[in-house]
């Protein structure tokens, strides 16, 4: 037997993955949304021939570029990290999980990255129509990219399309159709890419509001504001609708996640009156909410879109898991025996009998003496089973609040977009400086909502990397703590300096604003460099031609 799994290394690997994924996800939503806003502006330019829309496209395109670079850079980390830190995971699911990632590269990322160069550099080299096509290809590429990534993620949430093969000790790809038409993946793709549109809209609207407040390039600001506000209303409604659909899907596929999201501890059989917790203070150790305020009659219809479906509570789900743990232990012992001796057909038959619960056997390993399931016997079985069943509960407090913050921010944004669109379409937006200020200060909201959405989805998936099949505990690479500290420190240093530079440049170029250009000023300093401190309006064109 090889050395034991070190829980500290698993925790550090989780921490590193979570930090790098959350960080990557700071840049993705804006890329997803802003590309389509750019494409819309450029479409107006091509259709109407008004140069101001070209100027708008180029100005917002510059901010897009600053964001895009970090999205690409930090995406590299994600592509590496499964291999560098989740070796057992990669070996176990690579045959089905790696495929959508590879297809993402082939179909989407290549397109996005190749054409983005032409989008920035090709203005003078191809016709306006051809350039518009290029911009659309970038937008399509980035959103297709999200589709394949979320198909991969959907497999982690609700594994469909893969079959475990005891001869290769891994999940093997068995149905392409099941993989790509996974309900969770489909709903989450739309939810996520539309959340990107919300982010792009808030970004453009907030910065345009700043220009309106400071009287900068009103021609561009008013037009941008209107496009963004309308885009924002539509996409926020889309996000909420798909979020509701996701809850409905998860209630079936991941009941534990949903129970934690809503902090439901006990199954309520009087389903008509089950309250929906508006606020609560869930305590996992005590197994109850220390404090809660709920709205009766809301929960069941909200989650299940019906009035009589029973929603299982956390305690019942833990009890339901116990027999699965017992079976899982049997499955894993048999699987090991079969792997040490492939002629042991008895072991294979036993494994097949309990195969459905093998994930729970994997999960029990951390509570078995010396992490060896063979050492589980009559005297310690019930304690191992109890601990393992409890392990299936994610961090309820985090799940409950991450979900609520996301939802609350979603509705706040919907209200802001609605007012903004209304007044902007009535051409009265400038009469409402308070709304403009609110729009400006709301720029961070979609980012918070997106990050908390990620936490809701992935914290709620714990303790599994592949739901009900592979626990996080056995998924990590067997590194030393020293290795993990080295890479963590490196990431923190590198990523902190990136975000500092990113914010500096974003603020600089956003404050600088679109230049008073269309009458052909000249000789702006290189890349706008060295302009800090000069009055923004004194700056001549950055857009040649």
């Amino acid at each position, binding site marked *: 037997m090889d050395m034991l799994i070190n829980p500290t290394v698993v925790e550090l690997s989780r921490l590193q993955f979570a930090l790098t994924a959350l960080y990557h996800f700071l840049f993705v939503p804006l890329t997803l949304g802003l590309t389509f806003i750019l494409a819309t502006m450029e479409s107006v330019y091509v259709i109407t021939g008004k140069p101001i829309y070209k100027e708008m496209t180029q100005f917002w395109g510059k901010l897009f570029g600053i964001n895009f670079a970090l999205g690409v*850079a930090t995406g590299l980390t994600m592509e590496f990290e*499964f291999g560098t830190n989740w070796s057992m995971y990669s070996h176990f699911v690579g045959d089905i999980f790696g495929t959508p990632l590879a297809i993402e590269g082939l179909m989407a*990322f290549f397109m996005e990255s190749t054409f983005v160069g032409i989008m920035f550099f090709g203005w003078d080299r191809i016709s306006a129509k051809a350039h518009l096509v290029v911009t659309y290809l970038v937008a399509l590429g980035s959103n297709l990219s999200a589709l394949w990534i979320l198909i991969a993620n959907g497999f982690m949430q609700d594994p469909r399309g893969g079959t475990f093969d005891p001869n290769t000790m891994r999940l093997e*790809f068995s149905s392409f159709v099941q993989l790509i038409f996974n309900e969770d993946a489909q709903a989450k793709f739309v939810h996520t890419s539309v959340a990107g549109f919300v982010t792009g809209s808030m970004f453009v609207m907030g910065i345009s509001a700043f220009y309106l407040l400071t009287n900068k390039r009103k021609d561009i600001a008013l037009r941008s504001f209107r496009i963004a506000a309308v885009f924002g209303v539509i996409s926020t409604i889309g996000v909420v609708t798909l979020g509701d659909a996701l809850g409905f899907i998860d209630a079936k596929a991941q009941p534990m996640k949903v129970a934690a999201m809503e902090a439901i501890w006990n199954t309520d059989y009087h389903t008509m009156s089950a309250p929906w917790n508006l606020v609560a203070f869930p305590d996992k150790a005590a197994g109850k909410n220390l404090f809660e305020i709920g709205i009766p009659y809301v929960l069941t219809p909200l989650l299940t879109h019906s009035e009589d479906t029973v929603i299982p509570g956390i305690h019942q789900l833990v009890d339901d898991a116990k027999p699965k743990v017992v079976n899982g232990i049997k499955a894993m012992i048999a699987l090991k025996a079969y792997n040490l001796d492939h002629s042991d057909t008895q072991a294979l038959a036993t494994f097949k009998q309990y195969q459905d619960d093998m994930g729970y056997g994997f999960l029990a390993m951390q509570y078995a003496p010396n992490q060896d399931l063979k050492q589980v016997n009559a005297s310690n079985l019930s304690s191992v089973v109890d601990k393992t069943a409890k392990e299936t509960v994610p961090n309820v407090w985090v799940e409950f609040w991450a979900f609520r913050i996301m939802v609350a921010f979603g509705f706040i944004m919907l209200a802001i977009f609605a007012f903004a669109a209304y007044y902007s379409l009535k051409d009265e937006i400038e009469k409402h400086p308070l709304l403009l200020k609110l729009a400006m200060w709301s720029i961070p909201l979609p980012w918070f909502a997106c990050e908390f959405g990620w936490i809701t989805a992935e914290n709620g998936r714990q303790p599994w990397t592949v739901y009900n099949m592979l626990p996080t505990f056995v998924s990590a690479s067997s590194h030393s703590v020293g290795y993990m500290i080295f890479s963590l420190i490196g990431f923190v240093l590198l990523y902190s300096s990136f975000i500092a*530079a990113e914010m500096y440049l974003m603020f600089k170029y956003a404050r600088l604003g679109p230049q008073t250009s269309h009458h052909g000023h000249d000789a702006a300093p290189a890349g706008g460099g060295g302009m800090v401190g000069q009055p923004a309006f004194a700056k001549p064109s*950055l857009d040649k031609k």
Partner: protein
Amino acid sequence: MDFYIGLKVLWWVLLGVLLMGLAIMVGMDMGVGTLLRFVGRNDGERRQALNVIGPHWDGNQVWFILGGGAIFAAWPTLYATSFSVFYIVMILLLFSMILRPVAFEYRSKVAASKWRESWDWVFLVSGVLPMFIYGAAMGNILSGVGFHFSWDGQYYQTESFIWYLLNPIAILSGLLAVSMSVYQGGTMLMLRGTDPIASRAKNYASVAGIVAAILFIIGGFMISGMKGYTLISGDPGMSANPVSGQVVEAVSGGWMHNYGAHPILWLIPILAIACMLLGALFLRANKPILGWWLGALAWIGVLGTVAASMFPFLMPSSDNLNQSLTIWNASGSRYNLIWMTIFTVIFVPTILAYTTWCFRVMRGKVAKPSAADDHAY
């Protein structure tokens, strides 16, 4: 031949194609980064050098990302094991790779010379280090890597990362990769740059071609003398499970067995050497287009040489020889490889078509960007 075996061999070839595409295209950009401080003596010249690859580096970099994704999908166990075994080295590679896109986007956005100077150093590091590690990884794989598996497929490693960077064959292979990337990058600078950048690039690139040829020949002698691995038994059609099912032996000179059995394979290393030397010659004669293609062929020759020596090994284990990763025991499943093939057949030609279009759109010499040109890097 069994269909599954055919798929495994096909994906071995495609793995090679990916590694070659990556080496040629990403290597070229890395070479430009490495040479940046040497061919550009002032800010204008450096911006010009960067803009030679400005519109394309992002697309080229996807070869690298696609490489990761395709290895993950088609060779899951190889991906899982190699990335983890070389952990610290991989993390260093990753850090230098993620610095590069940022350097491109940020460098020219602030005029302060300290800012730009710092990013120019980043270009140097993120040009040399990834190529060195790319080469060193090949060298390490040739000498066998310290890992083994437990029954459930979890890998364990036994060697430290310092050794992976500092053993002679790793250093030699690393330097070989760096010089080939300098060659390719220099050639691109000649192609699309103007003097004085182009003429400086010519000097560096032609020397790099000759250095590469020398390093490659020395490497060949080292490898012919060292321990190579031989598959004694193992069914090519086996289910992909690295834990058991193979018998492997390590013998001195083992990497030369395939050449002994099929002397025609000698053409591959000869091709590599010929392309490097001819390439250097053509660059001296101001023929960068021909030089570029010879450089690409040289990469094909070098990686082809490694592949021909190692077939059917992907990553031999010095710890537990029988658990060495081979084409037969580390691949994806049959069903998966079929789907991967379908997508590759559709999309790789598509990618090549639009990449070519983009290069055509942006063809021609890159002038020094005017200080005001904000569409340039």
